[in-house]
């Protein structure tokens, strides 16, 4: 069912420093392999992460290569996975734990919010938490309840955490390596519906890894998105182009801290913005983004910043996903609302 990522790794070893086509799953696997090779303090663990190689094959082949002490399975207890991460970090390790699905992060909220996020603050900088928590996130794979969520606002609200979500294999590879090299805890939200699509990964040149990234320049309106919604917004931009509307797509990437400058630059130019996210509307990150844009671009905005988001309901299970996740038409309608807006 899956291509062997270890085979890919070996095949790629000879062509280091060149752009290669990888799926996000392969890119993340490769990044973890390199992190484990380069940093002996790194440990990778979670449910089924060891022998099985992870339900999404992100840790495929890593236990065989790096040994069970460094890549291992845990009991089905997220509080334990994250609690152990705290202890490992205090003892000088660099843990890269995984919660198997985003909905399984809830049982570990105490460890994440009360321990990981504030240990550095509590210890006056003597106990940093260099933890990269990998969270397969968002919907799009028709999984049951609790297997698809959109928790970025929850995490972004917690002081002490950083939150990032890559949208393509290249960013996934570089952002994971970057996150793992930082002294702060990073919630790394992997868009699981994008695990299988391939893209060019230039291992040698990651580009700027902080802040947002313009993935498609445009003149008339900025779509702000992250994770799996970036690909959808790129599709929308192509369709909008058919109607003569030139849409810029800004991949926010870092959801904490948010790149306010990139928002100001993009919307300062286009003067219109729509934020797209899978999470429910109310108190979602779209509100934060809209405020940052309003703060910097109030005088030149042609319309209020609009939001196209999931609904204010629990994130549904697979069968209802298509009704919930912002689709192309809903995003186009959001764009139309902004285009139609007239003052007064």
């Amino acid at each position, binding site marked *: *069912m*899956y291509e062997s990522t270890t085979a890919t790794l070996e095949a790629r070893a000879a062509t280091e420093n060149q752009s290669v086509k990888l799926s996000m799953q392969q890119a993340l696997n490769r990044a973890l392999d390199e992190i484990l090779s380069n940093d002996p303090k790194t440990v990778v663990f979670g449910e*089924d992460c060891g*022998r*099985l*190689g992870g*339900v999404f094959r992100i840790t495929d082949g890593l236990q065989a290569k790096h040994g069970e002490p460094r890549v291992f399975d845990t009991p089905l207890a997220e509080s334990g996975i994250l609690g152990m991460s705290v202890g490992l970090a205090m003892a000088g390790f660099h843990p890269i734990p995984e919660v198997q*699905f985003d909905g399984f992060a809830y049982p570990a909220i105490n460890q994440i919010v009360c321990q990981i996020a504030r240990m550095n603050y509590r210890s006056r900088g003597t106990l940093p938490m260099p933890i990269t928590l990998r969270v397969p996130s968002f919907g*799009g*794979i*028709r*999984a*049951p309840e609790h*297997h*698809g969520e959109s928790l970025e606002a929850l995490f972004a609200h917690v002081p002490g955490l950083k939150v990032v979500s890559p949208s393509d294999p290249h960013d996934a590879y570089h952002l994971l390596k970057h996150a793992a090299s930082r002294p702060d805890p990073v919630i790394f939200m992997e868009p*699981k*519906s994008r695990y*299988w*699509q391939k893209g060019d990964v230039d291992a040698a040149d990651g580009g700027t890894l902080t802040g947002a990234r313009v993935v498609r320049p445009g003149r*008339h309106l900025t779509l702000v998105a992250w994770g799996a919604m970036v690909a959808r917004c790129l*599709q*929308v931009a*192509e*369709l*909008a182009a058919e*109607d*003569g*509307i030139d849409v810029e797509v800004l991949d926010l990437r870092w959801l904490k801290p948010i790149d306010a400058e990139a928002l100001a630059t993009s919307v300062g130019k286009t003067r219109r913005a729509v934020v797209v996210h899978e999470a429910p509307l109310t108190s979602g990150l779209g509100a934060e983004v809209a405020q940052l844009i309003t703060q910097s671009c109030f005088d030149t905005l042609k319309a209020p910043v609009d939001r196209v988001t999931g609904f204010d309901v629990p994130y549904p299970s*697979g069968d209802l996903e298509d009704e919930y996740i912002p689709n*192309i*038409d809903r995003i*186009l*309608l959001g*764009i*139309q609302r902004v*285009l*139609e807006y007239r003052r007064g």
Partner: protein
Amino acid sequence: MAEISFPLPDLGEGLIEATVLDWLVSPGDQVERNQPLVELETSKSALELPSPQAGKVIRIHGAPGETINVGEPLVVFEVPDNTAGIVGTVPKDDAPKRRVRLSAVLDED
């Protein structure tokens, strides 16, 4: 080794059952993902059902002419332990579909 049972999937259009026309695989066959498994007929059309996964077929349910309800076992695969237990499905990369058209007079000030 683990067993994975594949029930007759929802065939859409409100269909609740299908009749087996012909099996294209036999127990013992090693099949690839998307390889045709069985010809089925519903009250609306005949179709070929592709295999949802790779694996060895160990049991098939329903002889030609027999009717199977949606959700009932159709075929059982034997798969290596390390491929069992995957949750969810790989999303299809369909071409984008739209109904909404944009219309706007853009004043380029």
